């Protein structure tokens, strides 16, 4: 499933981008958690992707102003993120930890957050946020009795109650059931469409693939890749693209395809043809032509490793 193509245009954001990291590093003694990372994030949904321990949470905490960069700068909305409580007027944070105040009800919790933001009509803002996450029915129950997904939704409501321009979510879909996940994804897409900047971290490829137009891949503290993941895939020219074909006569088609210069390797498995090609576009044009010329009917033609999974494993191994 491809994500909606949402072009990242740091050039278009001529005014200061919402998030800007320049040579940001963070180390703990001898261990470097984040290693000289620079990127900018603009409006839309950006996914921070990486294996556990890669540094995604460290980066998010730095952007949220809860970690000081050991070197380099982390700027949010034009100013440094560190020691700058003013940024929170425009920044909402959904932390990863499940802990909430168990004796407060959902409504009271969101209201508390609204009041701490000094919102003029705090109760209305709280109700709006609660309605947006679909928690109106359970809002007067104590949060100690909430399920994990309900807590997550209330945390989300608390983060958006002040209508922030920038939303940071740390592993937001952990433990969410599929329906909740879809609801939250829809909500995030809506908010992004309004021009907000949304950054979320995840190690689950499928989530990032569905939701994020722009992806930042963090591996071992370094920025391994950034941009639209389809584009990233195109750029990885030294790794052959894989296609799966089904046809009327696989063997004949295979022997014909081998002759084509874009083909690097062919494998016959069961009733499928796995073709490795060096040039994505070139092969896509050549294959139907070759099939026609050999008199073979093509039933199926799929690029098989377009998923973020393959992109990801490629980058991790590099």
């Amino acid at each position: 499933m491809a994500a909606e193509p949402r072009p990242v245009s740091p050039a278009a954001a001529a005014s200061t981008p919402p998030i800007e990291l320049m040579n940001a590093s963070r180390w703990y003694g001898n261990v470097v958690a984040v290693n000289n990372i620079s990127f900018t994030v603009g409006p839309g949904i950006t996914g921070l992707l990486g294996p556990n321990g890669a540094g995604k949470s460290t980066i998010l905490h730095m952007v949220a102003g809860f970690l000081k960069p050991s070197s380099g700068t982390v700027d949010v909305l034009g100013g440094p993120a560190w020691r700058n409580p003013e940024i929170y007027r425009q920044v909402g944070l959904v932390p990863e930890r499940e802990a909430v105040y168990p004796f407060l009800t959902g409504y009271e919790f969101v209201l508390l957050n609204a009041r701490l933001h000094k919102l003029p009509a705090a109760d209305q803002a709280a109700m709006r946020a609660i309605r947006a996450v679909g928690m109106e029915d359970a809002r007067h129950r104590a949060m100690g009795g909430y399920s994990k997904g309900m807590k997550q939704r209330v945390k989300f409501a608390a983060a958006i109650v002040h209508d922030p321009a920038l939303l940071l979510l740390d592993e937001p879909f952990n433990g969410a059931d599929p329906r909740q996940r879809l609801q939250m994804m829809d909500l995030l897409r809506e908010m992004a469409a309004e021009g907000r900047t949304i950054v979320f971290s995840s190690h689950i490829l499928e989530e990032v693939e569905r939701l994020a137009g722009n992806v930042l891949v963090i591996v071992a503290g370094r920025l391994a890749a950034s941009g639209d993941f389809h584009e990233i895939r195109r750029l990885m020219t030294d790794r052959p693209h894989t296609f799966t074909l089904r046809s009327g006569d696989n063997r004949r088609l295979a022997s014909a395809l081998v002759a084509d210069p874009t083909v690097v390797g062919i494998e016959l498995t069961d009733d499928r043809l796995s073709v490795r090609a060096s040039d994505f576009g070139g092969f896509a044009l050549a294959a139907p032509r070759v099939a026609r010329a050999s008199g073979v009917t093509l039933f199926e033609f799929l690029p098989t490793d377009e998923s973020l999974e393959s992109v990801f494993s490629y980058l991790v191994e590099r």
Partner: protein
Amino acid sequence: MILALTLRQLVGRRPALLMVAFAALPILVAIIFRVADPDLSHERWAANVLLKGLIVTTFLPLVTLIFGTMALGSEIEDGTAVYLLSKPLPRSHVISAKLAAAWLPAALLVLLSTEISAAIALQGTGGASILVGFTVATALGSFVYCCVFVLLSVLTSHALIAGLIYVFLWEGVVTELFSGTRIFSVRQYTLGVADLIADTSRRTFEANLGGVPALVLMAVVGAAAVGVAIRRLSRFEVRGLV
């Protein structure tokens, strides 16, 4: 708001009830004392044994320790402190709210305990100044203790044990043995203030630290503790390697 929130967190659970029971102990002891042996010197006993020994040395630090370290410390440990800190609020607001939330129940318990037990013990004597002296002293002392313990809870996740070591090893043993270190003991400040106000002879009660230096030190230590706590909180970092 943070004040109300924290008060709700601190009060109304089982430990709080135990606190109330502890607060009742001095009162009980005072009653036993009055009932059992009427011809002891009340004033001396009240000042040295009851108020200094039981309340100031034992009850006061324990109560302020529990409330002081839990007010902010439990939030930091649980992870809910994030919600308070990710707001456009100056950190001084957060600290002062937490400090007030710790001090109010602690002071309430300590003062009630002091008043009632001292009143019972000193009944019929002219020792009203002792009562006044210890009232003021414990009110101020509990505040300074709370400042120190709130600071500890910002500095370390082992705040309570550190506080216990401070109270029972440092204040309990070291400052008793080495009199020069008295200036670093909140207990001595408290006793000094009590001595200043209580109008008693040397035989009845005397603190190791003079009243005026005690007050000055209280102000200095309290302000310093709060200042450092605010500074550290504005540089609050999520702990550990995530």
